[in-house]
């Protein structure tokens, strides 16, 4: 079995098994946690509207903080948009998703993907450097932060190398790229990458709680 066959076969299957297991464990576990009982009369009873308000209002920083967190604000959006475009609209990625999900969607030109992947890599590197050098960020960062950045950064770098055929033969680069993605799948449910699944439900929950208490979300 070649490295590529291993990456496309057993390694992929087991990484996705761990990913699905961990993802459901974390999500269901969080959903069924005990919450405090409703011991007061809600100020207003519009949980859906409050939930959406929570999601939308937290998608931009509060005006008072905007000036001090502009860098994180802009780079955060640049990084996530560039990453999603690179992952979701590259033709070989779509072929991969189709093999797992059973359906596909249109792709973008490779040159556009190369640009977004380069942006995502550059921004993530800048954020990593800032995290490692900024005194406050350094203080609040732990191993989970660095591991999570590493397991996302490596697929980006190996993906660009595979696309550009830099450093080794294509099949080796493709195998290393797939293995790095599989490492991310394995780490995903157990580290801070889980925010991808938890962010919006958490904002929704916060929005409904604030609404119930009559607090501006």
């Amino acid at each position: 079995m070649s490295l590529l066959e291993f990456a496309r076969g057993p390694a992929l299957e087991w990484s996705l098994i761990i990913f699905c297991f961990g993802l459901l464990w974390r999500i269901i576990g969080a959903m069924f946690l005990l919450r405090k009982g409703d011991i007061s009369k809600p100020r207003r009873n519009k949980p859906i509207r409050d939930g959406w308000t929570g999601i939308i209002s937290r998608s931009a920083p509060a005006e008072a903080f905007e000036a001090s967190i502009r860098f994180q604000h802009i780079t955060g959006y640049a990084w996530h948009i560039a990453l999603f475009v690179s992952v979701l609209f590259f033709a070989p990625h779509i072929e991969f998703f189709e093999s797992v999900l059973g359906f596909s969607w249109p792709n973008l030109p490779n040159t556009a993907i190369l640009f977004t992947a380069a942006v995502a890599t550059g921004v993530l590197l800048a954020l990593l450097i800032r995290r490692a050098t900024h005194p406050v960020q350094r203080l609040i960062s732990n191993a989970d932060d660095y591991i999570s950045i590493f397991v996302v950064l490596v697929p980006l770098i190996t993906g660009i190398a595979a696309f550009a055929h830099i450093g080794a033969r294509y099949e080796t680069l493709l195998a290393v790229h797939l293995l790095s993605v599989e490492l991310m799948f394995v780490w995903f449910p157990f580290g801070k990458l889980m925010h991808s699944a938890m962010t919006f439900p958490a904002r929704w929950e916060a929005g409904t709680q604030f609404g119930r208490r009559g607090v501006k979300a």
Partner: protein
Amino acid sequence: MRKDQNLGDYLRLQGVSRRGFLKFCSATASLMALPPSAVAQVAEALATARRPSVIWLSFQECTGCTESLTRSHAPTVESLIFDAISLDYHHTLQAAAGHGAEAAREAAMEENSGEYILVVDGSIPIDNPAYSTIAGISNLDMLKEAAEHCFAIVAVGTCAAFGGLPGAQPNPTGAVAVGDIIKDKPIINVSGCPPIPVVITGVLAHFLTFGTIPELDALGRPVAFFGQNIHDRCYRRPFYERGEFAETFDDEGARKGWCLYKLGCKGPTTYNACATLKWNQGTGFPIQAGHGCIGCSEPRFWDYGGFYEPISAGKWGSREALLGAAAAGAAVGIGSALAARSRKKKAMAEEEV
């Protein structure tokens, strides 16, 4: 061609002009990635070369490799050079049969001991020697005997080079490649199903010119011919870059000649010279005919996944395992949440007390 005749004399007798011969030498030097200054050396060596003895053994194969090498549209300098080797044994092509043929092989091996080139096409069954025999001799025994005193071995075709189709799962005959058996002789793998004719003549030209084996890649293939993948040299590559793909074999993209990646083309992981040397006198190659590369020059290409599955697609059994994992994860999630609830309730009760 008489045995005492050199190649230059033979080609002149066949009507090949000096200009035509030098053109071939230039092309051969270029194919072998030699500098222009080497053309004169190639011409000198080829013109004065004595015909090398070649013994061709065909084992578990379909004769496609022989067909590829002999069924060119018109006589070319390459084919004339191929004719000019002393093909002392090839049971498909030779007129002699039975004991006469075997006697010719044994005589050639004795007469040219240590100098003859052994060409092998087809894989060798080792589970049971009786699966494939020639004149009652098993392929394994014949290969070992013929390899013992040869100068070098050229494994022609993917079956001889890597086991090929006979070695595909479940490999009922225990088929193996030449290199799995012979360890003490230089082996040049000229893989492909079938290999490109000019590659085998290029390898022979290298022998005749330098008396050595050419530079080989990690799989024992001549780098000059197998150094680059099909994808890098494919004329459809610009469509890949633009993200323009044929989705089916008869859609608009297919008619416009767009990239065949989504239809399972293995060009990115296949190393061969099809996109540059091409087939049928340089007329075209499979991708030019509208079908993706199936990766036939790579080891175990038959078991590499479906010919029509894209390279980036996952290669695994089913989604049931994922559903099972998700169900197990959900169960553990519920269990851990219930345990947490229980702990919390207990803590709250203790707090109230």
